[in-house]
């Protein structure tokens, strides 16, 4: 039962950076194809071209799941498109066995003016079902998508949730041997998402192989046996899931901090300037300047500011820290006035975090001084980063000391 469904050998694909040249090369390639020669030449790069997918090798057996990871632009989607037969590789060989399905373009080909029912027929035909098969499955599809009462309404009046639910319901009805997933695992509200996951689980039990592209390492590690980590320059890693994710995260952290150092521009005032920031730094609990901490450490963030003369408006200072997934911490405080209440005192303010639970490699601080009532921005500084060293790689955003307790009932 463990036959190989996908075999990918030395597959590469080149892309062109310039649109004009890309179109021109398209004409060349077309000429070559028509005269029966090889696609993509002999593997040499033409001016302005680069390898979007470089030297990929992997095999996937029935029932296995492959997690496809890599930075943005590492060629994950391009590889999926080659596997799906949409575009041809420039080098190498791809062999696929069985019916291929893709949860990529949910509801592609929906016509907004036609009703849901009509669109089911169109969409399912596009995905390769015959009229007879659709006739047999249409009730299941409507039922699955939970849009019974709206099925004879034009699709343009559907909510976006109904739209993707219908698309998903159709896409999973093709019962593929190989399923390609690009960031779409589940759609809709919580209830529907649970249904999506259960459907995918059913597929797995039936022996469907998956290829899953995701930036969510938790999902990757949960589903995949193997990982393919696509790297620039063709040094791809294909093997054990945990190890692959670890490598990927380690690389991410390194390049993050390299790119993020000193991105804050102190010479510019981003606002009306009644209060301006003149500097900021991170301190540990001994008061030393630092640029890196371990997850769980205490952190003090110190900001210097100056204010214009006779600045009596109520001014607040807001500090926001973002990690890769969005805002992680958010806090605000009112700036202090002098005794007469006529001027904001210059000085520095400290935000003290007793411990930093963020486990995603870095935090970027954004801080803003503004009028508490009108919201007028006085100054605003962005992208002030600190690197966080995870103690161990977990796949959660937070690392908080946790204990488990069981209350067992012996019979």
């Amino acid at each position, binding site marked *: 039962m463990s036959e190989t469904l996908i075999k990918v050998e030395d597959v590469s694909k080149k892309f062109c950076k310039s649109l004009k040249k890309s179109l021109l090369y398209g004409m060349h390639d077309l000429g070559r194809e028509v005269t029966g020669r090889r696609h993509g030449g002999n593997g040499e790069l033409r001016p302005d071209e680069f390898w979007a997918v470089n030297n990929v090798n992997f095999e996937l057996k029935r029932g296995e799941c492959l997690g496809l990871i890599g930075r943005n632009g590492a060629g994950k989607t391009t590889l999926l498109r080659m596997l799906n037969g949409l575009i041809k590789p420039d080098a190498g060989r791809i062999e696929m066995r069985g019916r291929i399905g893709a949860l990529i373009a949910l509801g592609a080909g929906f016509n907004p003016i036609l009703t849901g029912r009509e669109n089911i027929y169109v969409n399912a*035909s596009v995905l390769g079902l015959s009229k007879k098969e659709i006739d047999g499955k249409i009730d299941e599809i409507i039922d699955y998508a939970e849009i019974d009462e709206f099925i004879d309404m034009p699709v343009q009046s559907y909510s976006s949730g109904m739209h993707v639910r219908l698309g998903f319901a159709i896409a999973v009805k093709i019962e593929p041997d190989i399923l390609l997933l690009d960031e779409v695992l589940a759609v809709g509200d919580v209830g529907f998402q649970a249904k999506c996951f259960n459907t995918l689980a059913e597929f797995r039990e039936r022996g469907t192989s998956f290829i899953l592209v995701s930036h969510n390492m938790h999902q990757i590690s949960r589903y995949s046996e193997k990982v393919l980590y696509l790297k620039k320059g063709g040094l791809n890693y294909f093997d054990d899931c945990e190890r692959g994710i670890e490598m990927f995260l380690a690389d991410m952290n390194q390049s993050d901090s390299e790119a993020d150092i000193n991105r804050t521009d102190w010479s510019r005032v981003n606002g009306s300037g009644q209060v301006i920031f003149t500097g900021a730094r991170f301190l540990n609990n001994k008061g030393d300047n630092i640029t890196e901490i371990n997850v769980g450490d205490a952190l003090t963030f110190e900001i210097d500011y100056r204010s214009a003369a006779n600045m009596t408006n109520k001014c607040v200072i807001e500090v926001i820290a973002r990690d890769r997934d969005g805002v992680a911490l958010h806090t605000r405080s009112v700036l202090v006035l002098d005794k007469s209440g006529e001027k904001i005192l210059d000085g520095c303010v400290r935000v003290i975090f007793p411990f930093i639970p963020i486990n995603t490699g870095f935090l970027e601080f954004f801080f803003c001084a503004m009028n508490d009532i009108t919201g007028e921005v006085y100054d605003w500084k962005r992208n002030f980063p600190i690197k966080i060293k995870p103690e161990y790689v977990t796949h959660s955003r937070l690392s908080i000391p946790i204990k488990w307790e069981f209350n067992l009932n012996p019979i």
Partner: protein
Amino acid sequence: MTEQPITIYTPESVLANPRKMLRDMFYDLAAGRELAWRLAVRDISAQYRQTLLGFLWALILPLANTLVWLFLSESGVISIKETVLPYPVYVFVGTMLWSIFMDAVNAPLQGTTASKSMLAKINFPREAIIVSGVYQTIFSACIKLVLVLIAIAILGITPGWGVLFIPFALLSLIMVGTAIGLLITPIGLLYNDVGKAIPLLMQFMMYITPVVFPMPKEGLAAKLFIFNPITPLILTGRDLLTGKVPEFLSYFIAVNLVTVMLFLVVWIIYRLAMPILIERMSA
């Protein structure tokens, strides 16, 4: 376990294995049959659902065109030589046939452009788009045919037995038009220039085809008219509709035979071009 299709993708040109390619082509054509029908039904019903005049739109443009030419000739802005048929009938039938041809020319590029987002994401038989375009052209051709028949009956012309051969004339117009449209589609998808140039070229084509002007007897114009492969199609169509004996029947048949060959070639080019074009469409 049921037998599973094995799909292999390599950089080799599919032309390296012509037998397999031909088999795939006809397999995909058959596999795309139902989809083509679905897409045609989708596009036709969507096209007319958001209009008040509905199917009448298939007629309004050629009708307006006819009126323009009638006005031009009646008012003496242009002088048109004597035609065998009454001029209104001549122009009306001519523009109707021409508009069917134009529909067929435009369908492949328009259909493929409209399906870009689908093409870029889903693997389905690409032939379906072309076949769907042909279905839609046939559909509007049928509406036009009915109107032409009604109109010429009102104008007092009896078509005679030749009318039974009308489907052949229409189908060859559609076939030639689709072949031309398919030929320009791959380049048209890369460069928008093609889409912009077509109306211009087609207008010129119309003036060297006996659509609104009768066949000139001599000079450069006569040569252009007779070298133009669309000429026999339009003339034969009009002769059949208006109860005349087709004058250019052998030329008509020759054009059709050549087009069948051309069709196979442009179909192959279209298939070969698709992955290259999709690479350059946004996902």
